[in-house]
């Protein structure tokens, strides 16, 4: 027995281990509660992480963008070329992409039709990543089309598409899952010239380094364009939207969700520790005479106390270990399904819930063992031996 030899120098631990071995079924049942508790804590925590990662990746690149449209109090429809220049000046060294929007129907050679939204702009590469073909820095001729739409209609790179009475060749296929917009209908990205007969741009997109920069620039632009009037109202010339609020909302929602999941997990561990309390109490009452003998032959109260506490800790450790192993399997499956990458479970962000679960298991078990241990250690040996 390897463990027994290892424990030889730690008599309390050695005795505790032997005691657990005496009634394996009871030991297993007591640990089972802890196993379930740990699985609840760990896998619920990990689920929270997985959902959050999923949500954040769905939000995608949008968080570093600022979108500008005509404001409520604007005297013009859309965003004027002058306003775009002013935005460029104020925003500084970032990509500012003005665009027109429209909608159209594209048909395939065999007569199948798809409704798409149309965006007319020049700096295509700033906003669109392609899965095939190219996304030009200056889109002068040709178009980009969402790849899923192209697939549906059997359109390939180089095929012609008619829009507004003109023929364009497809130069690139846009990755379909980009940001919120990707989920709905497809997009057709055309050169600015296709809609330049319009007076004003429909919107302007600013792409910045990251979410913080986007928030900052949005604030500067709001200050600049939307002055407060003397009666305290804001004169909204341009409507300026950034996504930091959305991100923040998602984060706070996720935190709430995670706390709720952890709460549920903790409740199951509390239930588990009541089970351990019960088992430890039963087994110390059963062994009352035995513990009386220990005390009679000179084993100190502290030594008896330690022995029983370690017994409880072992129960927690056994259950905790089993729970962690099972949770890893659950986590691997979860991340495989949600993120397509099972080993994310070993990253600290989610792995820490395994650690929390394990520590909580041992902690809860030791706390549950306190009363039985104290009771057994302070039982007077005469009384214990009388039975």
């Amino acid at each position: 027995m390897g463990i027994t030899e290892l424990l030889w120098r730690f008599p309390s631990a050695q005795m505790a281990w032997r005691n657990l071995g005496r009634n394996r079924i009871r030991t297993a049942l007591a640990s089972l509660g802890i196993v379930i508790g740990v699985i609840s804590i760990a896998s619920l925590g990990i689920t929270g992480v997985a959902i959050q990662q999923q949500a954040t990746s769905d939000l995608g690149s949008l968080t570093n963008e600022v979108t500008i449209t005509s404001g409520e109090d604007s005297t013009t429809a859309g965003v004027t070329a002058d306003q775009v220049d002013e935005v460029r000046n104020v925003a500084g060294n970032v990509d500012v992409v003005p665009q027109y929007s429209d909608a159209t129907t594209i048909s395939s050679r065999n007569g199948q039709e798809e409704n798409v939204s149309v965006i007319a702009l020049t700096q295509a590469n700033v906003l669109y990543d392609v899965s095939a073909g190219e996304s030009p820095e200056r889109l002068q001729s040709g178009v980009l089309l969402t790849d899923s739409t192209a697939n549906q209609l059997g359109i390939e790179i180089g095929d012609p598409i008619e829009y507004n009475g003109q023929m364009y060749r497809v130069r690139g296929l846009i990755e379909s899952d980009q940001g919120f917009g990707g989920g709905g209908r497809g997009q057709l990205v055309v050169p600015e010239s296709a809609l330049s007969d319009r007076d004003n741009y429909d919107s302007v997109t600013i792409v910045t380094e990251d979410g913080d920069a986007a928030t900052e620039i949005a604030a500067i632009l709001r200050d600049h364009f939307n002055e407060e009037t003397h009666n305290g109202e804001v004169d909204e010339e341009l409507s300026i939207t950034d996504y930091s609020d959305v991100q923040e909302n998602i984060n706070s929602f996720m935190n709430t969700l995670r706390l709720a999941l952890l709460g549920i997990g903790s409740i199951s561990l509390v239930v588990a520790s009541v089970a351990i309390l019960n088992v430890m109490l039963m087994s110390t009452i059963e062994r009352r005479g035995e513990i009386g003998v220990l005390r009679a032959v000179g084993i100190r109260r502290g030594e008896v106390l330690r022995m029983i506490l370690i017994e409880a800790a072992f129960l927690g450790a056994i259950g905790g270990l089993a729970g962690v192993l099972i949770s890893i399997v659950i986590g691997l499956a979860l991340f495989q399904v949600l993120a397509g990458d099972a080993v994310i479970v070993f990253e600290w962000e989610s792995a820490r819930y395994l650690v929390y679960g394990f520590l909580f298991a041992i902690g809860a078990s030791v706390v549950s063992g306190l009363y039985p241990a104290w009771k057994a250690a302070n039982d007077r040996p005469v009384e214990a031996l009388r039975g």
Partner: protein
Amino acid sequence: MSVIALNDVVKRYQTGHETVEALKDVDFRAERGEMVTITGPSGSGKSTLLNMIGLLDTPTEGHIRLDGRDVTDFTEDELTEERRSEIGFVFQDFHLLPMLTATENVELPTMWDTSVDRHDRAVDLLHRVGLGDRLDHRPDQLSGGQRQRVAIARALINEPDILLADEPTGNLDQDTGRTILEELTRLKEDENIAIVSVTHDEQMVGYADRVVQLIDGEIQ
């Protein structure tokens, strides 16, 4: 000097409204190398007296001296230390731990003293009580007489001055009881210890150097 001495010891138990006087003004002493046997009818206070001698219980009145030291007012922890170093116990129903081997059971009282290794003494004691071939057997693999020998070896592991036995032959047949008594007599001389035993057993009285008769909590 007596290894253990009780002077004018009174023990009262309070149960509900009733007070039972289990021991009334008891004087008792035992010397090294002597086997004292306490007899008396059931309920006469034999176990109570033995618990006083073994420092498991404290008297309501009177004094207890261990090797001349007054231990009457010792705390539970101090008494535990005295039991650990000076006293050995043998019980009627053996009280061995079922998950430990014979050797481990013998080592049990000194198990928490990691500074001294009593393994060799445990093996030696088991040989001396005739269990040299049962060292790694567990209690359920031993007969009643063998278990009581393990218990005797356990009581001696800490080289005590006093060995206390409460009806040590009570659960054994005549022949086995006799061998146990012979064992105790031999060990008493080898180890030069005081043995105080409680018994109903006429046979056991025959092995005693001195018999103390207890009736209604009083020594006759």
